[in-house]
């Protein structure tokens, strides 16, 4: 996935002189996860550069660039360090277009790694997608495969609205997939049906797709047919795909790493209720993180969602 995102950035830098990339350590080092590796060398320090260590200024200056003709792509080093920039994102980036009645668009991508399962220190394991998705004016997207990462990144850069591009760090290098070198885009706002099934709908995104696929193997061994949906876009959310699937299966399980309360899972259950209430055969269920801080490595096993836990909930739903 690291390579696929790097390739997407490369294609767009080559194509559009107005694109600049900056953030902490993204230039010389190529990012702590090497997502921007080689790009400074190829496009120069005016277009790919290290910024001082200040997330609020990284995003605030990007707004200035975006309203004056550039298309900045900024990296925030980890999800836990997005919050100094939260004020700029919420108060200005998301609102400028509306505030200026369309005079000033903010074509900007804010990208950062997120998520747990990597035995990290504090502030390096969180999943704050709901915090961003709750802010009107932002698009929030999360890829689960290298192919999707490339197509969604190019679409994000070409979007005239600000896009929060969250990268599941746990699978940065875990999934090998052939990805075309050609330019292609995927529409932001569309979910993907990963696998069709008839008994239960499982909705997930990011690193949880892989865990769900493992759970589905267990379910199939037990004669349960699962439909797996990769949400891909948190906002706008693909209501139609969710509706069609839940109407078909009558059951829904949402799998996500974030804290359960007031989450994307909560939103999906609301959609299931609004769109498929009379089709439901079991209560829709969230299999998500607790309303606690993500524990450090020794305790993370309790927090992280394992395939057998997903299977357990699938089975419970089917036998409800």
């Amino acid at each position, binding site marked *: 996935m690291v390579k696929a995102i790097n390739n997407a950035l490369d294609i767009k830098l080559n194509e559009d002189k107005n694109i600049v990339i900056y953030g902490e350590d993204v230039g*010389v080092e190529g990012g702590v996860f090497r997502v921007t590796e080689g790009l400074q060398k190829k496009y120069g320090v005016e277009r790919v550069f290290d910024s001082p260590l200040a997330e609020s200024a990284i995003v605030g200056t990007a707004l200035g660039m975006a309203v004056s003709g550039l298309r900045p792509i900024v990296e925030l080093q980890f999800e836990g360090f997005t919050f100094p920039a939260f004020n700029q994102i919420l108060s200005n980036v998301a609102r400028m277009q509306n505030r200026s009645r369309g005079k000033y668009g903010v074509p900007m991508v804010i990208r950062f790694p997120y998520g747990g399962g990597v035995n990290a220190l504090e502030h390096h394991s969180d999943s704050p997608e709901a915090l961003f998705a709750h802010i009107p004016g932002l698009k929030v997207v999360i890829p689960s495969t290298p192919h999707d990462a490339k197509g969604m990144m190019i679409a994000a850069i070409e979007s005239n609205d600000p896009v929060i591009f969250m990268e599941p760090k746990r699978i940065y290098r875990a999934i090998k997939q052939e990805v075309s070198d050609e330019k292609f885009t995927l529409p932001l706002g569309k979910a993907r049906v990963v696998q069709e099934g008839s008994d239960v709908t499982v909705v997930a995104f990011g690193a949880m797709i892989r865990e769900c696929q493992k759970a589905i193997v267990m379910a199939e061994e037990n004669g349960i047919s699962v439909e797996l949906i990769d949400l891909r876009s948190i906002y706008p959310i693909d209501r139609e795909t969710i509706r069609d699937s839940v109407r078909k299966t009558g059951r829904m399980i949402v799998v996500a790493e974030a804290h359960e309360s007031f989450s994307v899972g909560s939103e999906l259950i609301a959609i299931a209720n609004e769109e498929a209430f009379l089709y439901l055969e079991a209560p829709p269920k969230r299999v998500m993180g607790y309303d606690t801080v993500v524990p450090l490595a020794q305790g993370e096993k309790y927090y992280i969602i394992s395939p057998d836990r997903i299977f357990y909930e699938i089975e419970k739903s089917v036998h409800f």
Partner: protein
Amino acid sequence: MTQNDLPAIFCDYNPIEDKMLQVIDNEGNIINKELMPELDDETIIDAYKLMLYERIADEKAVSYQRQGRMYTYTPNLGQEAIHIAAGMNIRKVDWLVPSFREMGTLLAKGVTMKDMFLFYNGNEHGGSFKNANHVLPIAISIGTQFQHATGIGYSVKYRKKDEVVFTFIGDGGTSEGDFSEALNFAGVWKVPVVFTIQNNQYAISVPVKAQTNSVNLAVKSVAFGIPGIKVDGNDFFAMYLAYKTASEYARSGRGAVLVEALTYRLGAHTTSDDPTKYRKKEEEELWGLTDPLIRLKRYIESMGIWNIDEEKLTEEYKQQIDEQFIDAENNKSYPLNDVFQYMYTDMPEELRRQKAEYEQFLSWKEKRK
């Protein structure tokens, strides 16, 4: 504030003129005799021993991480003089609001290597530093701790306590808004806080030159109306003098001080970092010549007061540190309750429900075996 209220070193080493406080050179020779702090031989040798202990503990920690017995760790190599000088000036009642690279000062406050190992082994109990008085947990969100220190300073002043707050930040952290905001408040409130910038030249890969256009970092104090000083952070005596002067100043009720300790991170940012990506070996070697341990040792030897069997002491320390590591390694108990128990004073019903649900899953899993 008039110039006359200021201790002499803050006038003599005005950061606007980019002067740096130094007492000994790289060879351990005294270059500023009048600044030599009054320390007896035994105290100086003790300081060396503490620096040696920190260095060995740090090297051990890196090697445990390399062996896969510990998770991500933040090395201290090369910055020991700052930590030990601060540690020798921080009293039990004083506060330590750390960043994440000041091991020797944490140890001085009563944190143990076992705590450190437990923490870097992924257990919050280690990071709680529960047996160390007035020490906050380490701050990973860069720069935020400076504001906490200022707040503690206000509280100390309000409660009329004789306590000083020591806090640390890196060179990169000075770019965060929190840094400037904290110093501004500290200036207005005249709080007893000793702020230290450990300028170790790099914020991960980004050199300090790409961080600021200021002539140095201590000069940032000027705008906030607090005294600042740039000190050779690899010179134990200079750091000792700076901290002694700064903490006395803070205790006297005159307000906060900003100390820039010029040093070099000889190791990696964390064990996940590879410095060969962004800096040259020659540069590391050049800074290696300023190694704080070597400098202090040369001074001690030149005074003819060296009385340590360093090899034997090193072995002793290694053994002690190993014992603490094994102790931490054998203490990997992490009950499910630890995930939930500390979130609220009284656990909300919602968390009880989530915990119970997980326990049901565990018993289902047990039955399937």
